[in-house]
């Protein structure tokens, strides 16, 4: 007899209950709160990141993402609530957690006069690896993040994006079960973003638990399997990308001329509005599902409206983010 939670998500091939997430190297955060003096950085966050998946942590600036990351990385103790990372409590068993967690901070810490290779090798030995092991692993990672030609140059000559990639390699040096990435894509060029995406997917495919915090939602759309939304120190929503994709979303439609489109929409009773935030002249339409969208497109084409553009307004996660809108109200 399989647990209900497994059956529920059986169709996606990945299935973890909360206890299984904990026992198999994932992250479970329950009812966590933390304040800094008078500032309540985190009020109440529940968060779960199962192994083998990329979990996105999404929220506006100052919503507590980094604070939560620090707690999971065993740098900060929660005032209330429990954190379990790879089956251990970061407060009481920090060494066990640290040996299993790779953390990439949102700030760039650089030993300016050290070479990228030296940084990686040093960090490797600080995770208990032998000098030979960490040197070999450092070389592999330099290849993986495409810094081979800069491996022997002092880190100060690296550009911001290159330092970001070095920081990623550093988080991976001890082949951790859990990877915590705080804004990993900031400062990366488009090519590096694609590389990052495929690296994270391959890590998840290898059974690692990957947590990515960001507010660049279009990017997370393609990387993440699930997303947890936080706002003002609270977790407000948690959904899988599958769920996010099947929810109501906005579409932008353009036609030549726009008047014909307006007439057709009115005749079918579809509510539309003029898009206000764009240079282009477009209508914004709220549609309940992909089926509804394909019906509308077909109908418009049949009605001889010259449709020049018909596209979702944003990614699935962006849609959820905008629908929550808790911080900007």
């Amino acid at each position: 007899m399989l647990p209900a939670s497994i059956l529920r998500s059986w169709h996606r091939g990945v299935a973890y209950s909360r206890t299984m997430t904990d026992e198999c190297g994932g992250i479970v955060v329950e009812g966590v709160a933390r304040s800094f003096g008078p500032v309540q950085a985190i009020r109440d966050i529940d968060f779960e990141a199962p192994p083998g998946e990329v979990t996105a942590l999404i929220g506006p600036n100052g919503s507590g993402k980094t604070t939560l990351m620090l707690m999971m990385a065993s740098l900060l103790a929660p005032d209330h609530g429990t954190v379990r990372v790879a089956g251990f409590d970061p407060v009481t068993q920090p060494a066990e957690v640290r040996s299993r967690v790779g953390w990439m901070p949102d700030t760039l810490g650089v030993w300016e006069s050290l070479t990228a290779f030296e940084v990686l090798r040093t960090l490797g030995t600080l995770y208990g690896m032998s000098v030979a092991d960490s040197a070999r692993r450092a070389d592999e990672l330099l290849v993986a993040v495409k810094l081979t030609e800069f491996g022997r140059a002092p880190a100060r000559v690296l550009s911001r994006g290159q330092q970001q990639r070095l920081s990623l390699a550093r988080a991976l040096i001890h082949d951790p079960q859990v990877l915590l990435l705080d804004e990993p894509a900031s400062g990366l060029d488009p090519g590096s973003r694609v590389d990052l995406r495929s690296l994270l997917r391959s890590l998840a495919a290898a059974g690692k638990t990957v947590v990515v915090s960001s507010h660049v939602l279009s990017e997370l759309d393609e990387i993440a399997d699930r997303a947890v939304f936080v706002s003002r120190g609270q977790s407000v929503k948690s959904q899988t990308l599958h769920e996010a994709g099947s929810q109501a979303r906005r579409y932008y439609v353009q036609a030549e001329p726009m008047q014909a489109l307006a007439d057709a929409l009115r005749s079918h009773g579809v509510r539309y509005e003029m898009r206000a935030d764009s240079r282009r002249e477009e209508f914004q339409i709220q549609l309940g599902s992909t089926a509804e969208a394909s019906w509308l497109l077909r109908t418009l084409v049949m009605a001889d409206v010259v449709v020049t553009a018909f596209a979702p307004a944003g990614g699935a996660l962006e849609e959820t983010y905008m629908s929550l809108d808790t911080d900007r109200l």
Partner: protein
Amino acid sequence: MSAGTEHSTRQPFGQATRLPLWSAVRTVFSLEMRQRLRGRGWYWMLGIWFTVIALIFVLGTAFLGATDNEGGVLFDLVVGFILLFGLLVAPGLSANAVNGDRAGGTLAILQVTLLTPGQLLAGKWLASWVASLAFLVLSSPFIFWALALGGVNAAEALVSLVMLAVELGVVCAIGVGVSALANRPLFSIVSTYMLVALLAIGTVIVFGLSTTLVMEERTVRSSYYTYPESSLDSMGVPEEGAEAVCQSQTYTADLPDTQYITWLLAANPFVVVADAVPYSLPDVEADPAPGGMVPGSYYAPGVMETVSQGVRSAQAGPDLEVTCEESMSGRQPLPQGVPIWPLGLGLQLLLAGALLLIGRRKLTMPARRLAQGTRIA
């Protein structure tokens, strides 16, 4: 981009949860030293140091050219200046060790590894100590030059150098401890200078002020040789063949019982070094001829030896009985009574140890309480 998958079949690396102390300290040490050796600041400081010591040495040589105990006094001078400059340089080398990393964003990266706060502090301390020992090594040409001039015994030279190294280590430990406590490098460097000033100058000031507390009215008997009234002629010049006689005078004066407050000076780095060094005291002729001039071996101590003598005379307290022999022989070297440097070094180690312990607590993660404005990463 397959760094993760490659290793899933292999035994994972990071399942160790503890680092051996020595390997952890060595890693931090080499991390620190590598940065220092590649930076420019350290070399500049070494260059300035060498120039200043050379200047003082040359001036000292020119000034002391005629003295008999040239080697001894020069060596003492060099030791004194190395200690003075060491106290100025060591805080700069150590007091931004931890919070400099915090400002650079690299501290948290070290803290999420298996490195313990104690290992981190030990490595940082060792690195800053070795860096400040380089200043001692750089001064060796002058030390050897002074030794070559003679007059310094091996024990004096060896103990002087060892105590210099120890004092540099103590100041570095204070600096590293403060750097773990204070959030900003500037603040911790200034604080460390303040603590060093407290030891080097503050102890002397406190000692000086405390003398008023132990002031007591004492009767002093002071004797000296003089010619009897009868042997003087009308001009006041003693007659040929007249003999000087010993006369005594008693008077009362307020004198401090410094023997009760000398311990206040103990933690002074100069006192610790000077008191530990076994200076070879010249033999003073036991019975100078009455009325004769100053005996042959004139006692001229160097700077550090003067400190040592000052401490000994403070330990001895006021001299209430000056005999005629004493009045004739000029300054007499005092032999060591109870050594005071173990107490001083103990106090210094206590201060450094306490700072490092509190610093270690502050670096222990996960953090429960954070000082206002602290950012972990």
